[in-house]
């Protein structure tokens, strides 16, 4: 990593409801207790309630409801547009973080469930590019482990993760959340072992299963570059492991 980059920024992305916000709350509490409170930026304009104290909150800058009416947009369009508006001022956020980098070791960014911000639209790339120019920046991709027990949902999440990797060109850590409900171990096995995947797919249509099998070749390569952790934002199990992975990445 380039010398002179101070501070570690972790961008928390994932499908709607995967537990990004809850995960951040859990990690923040843990870090506070260990005397290293994190600096948190909320990018979700439609968040109703945040369980942690955000240091910077998009909702203070962009009123998502008036974006909806002003631009005649539906809720999804409004969230994307709010992100665009905020992205144009993100240089300010970066300079604040720059100043704060003396006092904080960890910076986290909570994001809306519209993952296309980071897989497709322009704002996500502006944000990750600006961040990675100044800080050691990593993507934490949160998965809903119980939902991912369905192989198609799992595959779709993984394709999103690959997509975020190419879009942002940043290292990706897979965080399997909600392991209090279902274990992530079988999924990790699935990623590394093609034969298991085939048996999971029995009963799926021929076309989908052939495509899935060959997409699996992609995932096998992807797996080589991944760090993977399991956590429960609800019970706190796995948090130590998460922190140690973050420290590893932070150390370069």
């Amino acid at each position, binding site marked *: 990593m380039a010398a002179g980059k101070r501070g570690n920024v972790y961008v928390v992305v994932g*499908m*709607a*409801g995967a537990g990004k916000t809850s995960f951040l709350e859990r990690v923040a509490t843990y870090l506070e207790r260990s005397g290293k409170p994190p600096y948190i930026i909320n990018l979700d304009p*439609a968040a*109703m309630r945040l369980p942690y104290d955000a240091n910077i909150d998009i909702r203070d800058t962009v009123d998502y409801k008036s974006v909806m009416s002003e631009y*005649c*947009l*539906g*809720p*999804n*369009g*409004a*969230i*994307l*547009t709010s992100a665009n508006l905020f992205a144009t001022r993100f240089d300010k956020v970066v300079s604040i973080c720059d100043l704060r980098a003396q006092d904080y070791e960890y910076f986290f960014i909570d994001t809306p*469930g*519209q*993952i*296309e911000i980071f*897989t*497709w*639209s*322009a704002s996500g*790339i502006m944000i990750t590019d600006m961040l990675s120019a100044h800080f050691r920046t990593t993507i934490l991709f949160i998965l809903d482990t119980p*939902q991912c027990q*369905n192989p*198609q*949902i799992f*595959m*779709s*999440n993984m*394709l*999103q993760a*690959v*997509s*975020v*990797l*190419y*879009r942002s*060109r940043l290292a990706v850590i897979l965080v399997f959340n909600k392991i209090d409900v279902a274990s992530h171990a079988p999924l990790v096995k699935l990623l590394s072992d093609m034969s298991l995947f085939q048996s999971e797919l029995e009963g799926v*249509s*021929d*076309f*989908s299963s*052939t*495509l*899935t099998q*060959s*997409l699996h*070749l*992609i995932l*096998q*390569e*992807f797996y*080589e*570059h991944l760090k993977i952790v399991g956590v429960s934002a609800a019970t706190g199990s796995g948090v130590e492991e998460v922190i140690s992975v973050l420290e590893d990445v932070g150390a370069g």
Partner: protein
Amino acid sequence: MNVFLSLRSTTNHGTVLSPRRAFAPTFSMPYAQLVVGPAGSGKSTYCHNVHQHCASLGRTLSVINLDPAADEFRYPVTADVRELISLEDVMEEEELGPNGALMFCMEYLEDNMDDWLAEQLEGYMEDDMVIFDCPGQLELYSHHSAFKSMTEKMTGWGWKMVCVYILDAQFISDGTKFIAGCLQAQSAMLHLALPHVNILSKVDMLQDKSVLEPYLCPDHQRLANELDERMDPKYRKLNHAIASVMEDFALISFAPLDISDEESLQFVLYQCDCAIGYGEDADVRTSRDVEYGDEPDMSNLSLE
């Protein structure tokens, strides 16, 4: 890799990618386009333009709105999911955020397919075409059950469906961005298992249209090389794995859509028609063309 080679030969037009139902040649059924893609990508605009284009050709086509968050329409709305359920009511009554409320509406639609949807689709006959304008929320197409159930239901009712996946062309600036978009479209392809047409919208807004050229029908080796240039060297094998899967499945052809250009609309529509075999039966087409050549087809107007 032999399996893929044999697949490739049949997938040049992206038409045979999903299991097609076997129909007796004389028995043709209605057609439908499911227009999906990220928020704001131009789905409703596409519906409007295709509707207009077809009207000018004397080809009838109905547009059904399935987006509970939509509020203005530039096309005549034949049926509207908002008659079934209102997003605002759901947000209020269920105390849900916009995302949750939209999901709730779609689940409600899923529960009401046999009555509401079936009723809206009554009376369509052979060679009629319906376009569904859908909400811009990706998980609906990558893993939520509502649209999957809907396409399964409609296929069961005898509809021939194509998924039209719309992405905004302005977001393609290099190979890595392009791949990210392809993977999005692929999730939908995998989940919905329908014939698939990918469209790049808003091409009229590009200052330099030539940037798209390498991506419309990309050379896979070139794409892999471009990824190699832009990504950390450790991702080389991944780059090549992605490029080769794309090649094997002929997955990544995109049709550019410039709404200011009728020819471009015509081309896009032609791709969709090919994907579901609309107008394949030449006899039927000719007789219809002759029959309706002079006056517009009024038979569908009573169907509302």
